[in-house]
């Protein structure tokens, strides 16, 4: 019988091969996918987030753990999708217009997925109208706007204004992030949430949908 703590430990070590192998064994042993996620993968990636926030882990460890998590999730996602397992919520994310940085955003995506979010990643250099269109068409709980440059932070503010003008602002919570972004600036542009890093973003996102 696979010990789900072992899966957590494989994620914490960033050992993707081991995480994948143990997840496979657990599925063979008919452990419900939801249980593998909740008691194996999620505690692992949450611990990784804590270790990153406390300064014990750095980007290489975070990236390795995120990769291990993504590989294990690819295995159980189709099975989870077949059941009636509710995820935390739906998260729409993208890097704002004129900005093509994506590594920070991609780490946030990995961490959100690992923590039970269904994530739609629009990519980089996304104009306000494309964010508006996606918000209008989808049923998302949160929109995450990433801006890595002082010069492109304004684009995040412009996107929020465009959502207001299109009458869509009340439909969605908005989070902002990126190296130059601060809580004060997030408040100024009317965002609902801000976090300085990916693990923080997971916590703020959960709080915004009342699941912290």
């Amino acid at each position: 019988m696979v010990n789900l703590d072992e899966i957590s430990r494989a994620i914490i070590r960033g050992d993707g091969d081991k995480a994948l192998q143990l997840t496979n064994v657990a599925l063979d042993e008919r452990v419900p996918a939801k249980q593998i996620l909740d008691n194996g993968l999620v505690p692992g990636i949450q611990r990784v987030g804590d270790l990153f926030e406390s300064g014990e882990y750095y980007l290489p460890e975070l990236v390795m753990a995120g990769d291990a998590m993504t590989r294990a999730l690819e295995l159980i996602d189709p099975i989870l999708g077949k059941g009636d397992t509710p995820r935390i919520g739906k998260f729409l994310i993208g890097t704002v217009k004129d900005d093509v940085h994506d590594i920070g955003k991609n780490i946030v995506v990995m961490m959100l997925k690992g923590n039970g979010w269904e994530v739609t990643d629009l990519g980089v250099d996304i104009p306000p109208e494309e964010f508006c269109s996606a918000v209008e068409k989808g049923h998302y709980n949160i929109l995450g706007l990433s801006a890595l440059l002082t010069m492109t932070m304004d684009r995040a503010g412009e996107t929020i204004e465009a959502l207001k003008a299109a009458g869509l602002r009340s439909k969605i919570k908005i989070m902002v992030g990126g190296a130059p972004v601060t809580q004060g600036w997030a408040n100024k542009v009317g965002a609902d949430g801000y976090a300085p890093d990916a693990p923080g973003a997971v916590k703020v996102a959960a709080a915004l949908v009342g699941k912290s």
Partner: protein
Amino acid sequence: MGKLTGLERIMKAVNRQEPDMIPTLEIDIEPDVINAIKPGLSYADFCDYMDLDGICYFDMKGKRYEMVDEARHIARDEWGALRRFTPATPHNPVPWDPAVKSEKDLKNLVAPDPDLPYRYTEIEQAVNTYKGKRAVIATVMDPFNTVKDSIRGEVNVYMDMIKTPEFVDELNAIARDYHMRYVKHCIDLGVDIIWVTGDYAITKGPMVSPKFTERFLTPGLKQIVEYCHSRGVHCFKHTDGNIWPIFDLLVETGIDAIHPIDPTAGMDLGEAKERYGDRLCLIGGVDCGALLSWGTTDDVREAVKEAIRKAGKGGGYICASSNSIHNGVKPENYVEMVKAIREYGKYPLSLT
């Protein structure tokens, strides 16, 4: 003390002595800001116009990219990596797709040629024009950052550090060979200072652990520093971010100055001065994010005074922005910054 030249002023500061006044320079000034202040001037002419104490030259700035996708603004750099231009980064395109996607790709990697004479035309001109008047500085990318941004890609190299550390060593060696030869040519031409760019940290802290920093990052820097010193040339290091956990490792490489002590990343000039001011010169400290982009000229003046109060005493400080004068900086704020440095930076300092 009589009026010193820009070069003398910087050398005094680097040697942690008090010059006639606190020097100032910028590692980069974007053309939008130059054109708003004095239309049509080149970067070098603008440094002259503003009477800055040093002039920096990047390796093939703006000339090292071959456009491969006009519509998406994607270009190939000299290492074969793809990079993407945006209106916000017209001169520093963002890494998009690395040259070496797998270990097997390594055999196809063709390093740029550091011996090409046209690479050094601008530096040679600068040495002829400014030698002895202003510090002529050649900036060189940190070998690790070339591996990260061009050769292997950021996420790949982080995973390599854990999975195949020897492969990172191999890539670092390739990058080092290029950069060492570039540095040698610059020094042969007579530059006064080598300034190694490329970040080791993000706002939260170092990108990689101190152990990995020592294993993969600082050896390349140390090799450049030791070579510069063997030729009697000073070597500066630039890195964004919060570097407190790796500050000692940086100092141990023997660098003569550290830049840019970014207050928005938790770096404090006063604390840096207190802890490391007896071992190296500090450069920077004036926030080029919110302050220079959106602040008032009064805010800028106060920030300059604060920086001088914290780091100016006894020399060892070059006042500059916390990164560079990018396109988002209000031109009037940069003018005010330089004016305030000249006004409040005269030794003996009147600010306490």
